[in-house]
């Protein structure tokens, strides 16, 4: 029979229930015929956690309250139900790590959690815990607990995916109950009730464990006992690279762009600003240029401004910002607000702006066009970039058409209608022509 504990005395106070849990754990593992090398004991912070040195199994001793999460990682990585993961945790750790307990139970990670519940924090002097029952006294709670402590077994029993939950008193021989829990697939939990000899007994003289448990309204029973699907970690072996040389963009067009051009597209979320910027970027690359695209947006998705800075250059692009862009395209009021500071600083260049908006003071050449009216809000950015190329020819229109038509968006888009709309004069132009001589 394998030994699971060293011959050295256990490191706990005389009369502490932790001694019984260690001894019964060894006996339970012997009953099941386990090899110590198939056991990983994960311990929390608290008196119980100093048991590591006494166990002959693998041991991992972590942080306060996190042992169940730590064991989750061990269990998920081992991915082998024959390797048994056991967690020792106290009532303090179980409170800190309640989320970890619920999560491990919910997912059915292979492990058995043994909660050492002595109703108080033994390591730090006997402060009350969230498990301290009504009326139970500790050195820091001389009047006794004022509320009912957590019923952890009830809480965990409510979680789907748990295979076994039981509460028992940590006296005499409870190795068979522990063995039952250890033998389960998936997540099992045993709460062992104890009274701390140093602080619990002294503060509640003559009180018996069974009375405390009964007085707290806690039931000594098996709460859950069922077959569940234990967690299996998916380990994929057939994985494709994220990118391939075959997907490289070929240079199909040429451009006469002499110096780098920096553009800023500013509009509203959901109106295709980022997509339009990517079309420009790809069109530039298809024309043999280097390019970058930097997106800006608020934290919320789907509302507020959306802006993108695109740089196209025949040289290597280093700095990817555009504090002084050559071209700003504004298609909405949100976009205008975003661009206002940059527009005020512009010393030249062009501003393409939806004609529904009032252009602010700027030294850029202002080019209004009714993008929203002609294309609708959703298409305003797409209309904008085609109009931009019509007016500036910085990269070939064919390049933009090529990358646009490659995209699935093109199938739902009426290019003919757009080009017609981009040709037609609009009221501002008419107004300008009629008023210009004056």
């Amino acid at each position: 029979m394998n030994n699971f504990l060293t011959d050295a005395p256990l490191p706990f106070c005389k009369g502490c229930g932790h001694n019984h849990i260690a001894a019964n754990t060894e006996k339970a593992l012997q009953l099941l015929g386990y090899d110590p090398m198939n056991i990983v004991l994960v311990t929390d912070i608290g008196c119980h956690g100093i048991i590591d040195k006494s166990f002959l199994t693998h041991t991992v001793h972590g942080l306060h309250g996190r042992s169940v999460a730590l064991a989750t990682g061990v269990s998920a990585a081992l991915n082998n139900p024959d390797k048994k993961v056991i967690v020792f945790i106290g009532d303090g750790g179980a409170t800190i790590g309640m989320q970890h307990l619920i999560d491990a139970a919910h997912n059915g990670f292979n492990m058995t959690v043994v909660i050492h519940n002595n109703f108080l924090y033994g390591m730090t002097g006997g402060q009350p815990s969230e498990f301290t029952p009504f009326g139970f006294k500790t050195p820091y709670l001389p009047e006794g607990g004022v509320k009912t402590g957590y019923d952890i077994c009830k809480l965990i029993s409510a979680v789907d995916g748990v295979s076994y939950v039981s509460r028992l008193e940590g006296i005499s021989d409870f190795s068979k109950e522990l063995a039952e829990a250890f033998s389960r697939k998936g997540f099992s939990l045993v709460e062992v009730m104890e009274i701390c000899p140093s602080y619990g007994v002294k503060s509640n003289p003559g009180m018996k464990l069974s009375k405390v448990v009964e007085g707290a309204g806690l039931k000594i029973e098996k709460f859950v006992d069922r077959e569940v699907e234990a967690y299996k970690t998916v380990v994929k072996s057939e994985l494709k690279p994220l990118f391939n040389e075959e997907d490289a963009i070929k240079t199909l067009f040429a451009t006469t762009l002499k110096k780098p051009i920096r553009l800023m597209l500013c509009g509203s979320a959901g109106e295709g600003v980022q997509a339009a910027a990517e079309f420009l970027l790809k069109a530039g690359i298809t024309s043999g240029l280097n390019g970058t695209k930097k997106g800006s947006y608020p934290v919320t998705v789907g509302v507020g401004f959306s802006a993108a800075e695109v740089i196209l250059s025949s040289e290597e692009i280093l700095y990817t910002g555009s504090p002084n862009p050559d071209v700003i395209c504004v298609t909405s009021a949100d976009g205008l607000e975003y661009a206002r500071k940059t527009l005020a600083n512009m010393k030249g260049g062009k501003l393409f702006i939806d004609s529904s908006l009032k252009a602010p003071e700027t030294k850029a050449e202002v080019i209004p066009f009714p993008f929203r009216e002609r294309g609708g809000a959703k298409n305003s950015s797409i209309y904008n970039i085609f109009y931009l190329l019509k007016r500036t020819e910085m990269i070939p229109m064919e390049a933009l058409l090529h990358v646009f038509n490659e995209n699935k968006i093109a199938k739902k888009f009426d290019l003919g209608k757009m080009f017609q709309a981009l040709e037609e004069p609009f009221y501002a132009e008419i107004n300008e022509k009629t008023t210009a001589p004056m």
Partner: protein
Amino acid sequence: MEAAVKESRLIMDGSELIIESLARAGADVFIGYPITPANLLYSYSQERLPSFFAAPDEISTLQWMCGYATTGKFPVTASSFPGFALMLESVNMAYMMELPMLIILVQRLGPATGTATCGAQGDLALLNGAISGGFSLPVVSISNMKDCWEMPAKAMQMAIDLRTPVVFLTSKEEIMTLASFSIAKLNAINKIERKFYEGDETYVPYKTGESMVPEFLPVGNSKHQVRFTASTHDQKGIIQNTSKEAIDNTKRLEYKHRQNHKQHLFYDYDEQNGAETLLISYGITSAASREAVKNIREEGGKVSLLKVKTMLPVPPVYFELMDKYKKMVIAEENLSGQFRNILFGERGNKNVKGVNGIAEMITPARIMDAVLCE
């Protein structure tokens, strides 16, 4: 129309390169919780790494990673300050247990929740003091897209060789900005083969030789008992109060980094003959620094550039390089000059100028002004 002669390129972001690099180097699992601006790393990992876990929070993330790492597998996560702050106690645990792992920290504008969609270089001071006791937590950085490919695998090798968590420091624009990029000339990245203890003698988990790095053996192995502990411990991994053996073991955690730093030293030094000014930068500000240097040289000025990639602990060679110059300019996107403070302290140095700012990338023009001013 005649086509220009250019090598074909892909439109990529740095995140893709980082995750592909880690996948090829043999990272086993990504465990993480979403946070802007680190989400691309999350989604690419889900597609590309053998295993993927959506953890319920960042404390769970680091704990799961630690558990994973005890079994000899290599875990990766990505987060930003709010998530990293939650991870911090567990990072200390991983450090004390000597568990190799990679934490990609994508910096964004703070304090607190700050602006999730605005980049920053504001977390270096935190990293410099992240380990209780002032121990060195290795931090590496990147300076361009090519580094997004090469540095993750190197950082992973470093984490394994030194048995330590490594922080891979980035910023929003470094991993989210799209750029045309040729992958044709990228170095091959080979799978890192982990070496585990193979002896027949009893395995002593924290016993070390000259390298000061203990041999690794996974928990769950069938031959030797393995212990990991986050508390002060002796070579056997047994909790101690302040025994000499245990405190020597704790000191070793610092010494191993100092002793082995040369094997994991990464920087780019662009020296110009006759230059009296050294421009120092890292991360997102490296690109603006390169542009500033290019412009200065084109106008006949002289300046050398040191792009730092091994950030912490600070390699002594950086000071040797600095000693050659009359003036230094350190450009970084934070308010107080965090790297400058790490190098020169609060009192600073009259020969050192900082170019700093928040909420927007430092411009080449500002760097040029600082380099060229008397």
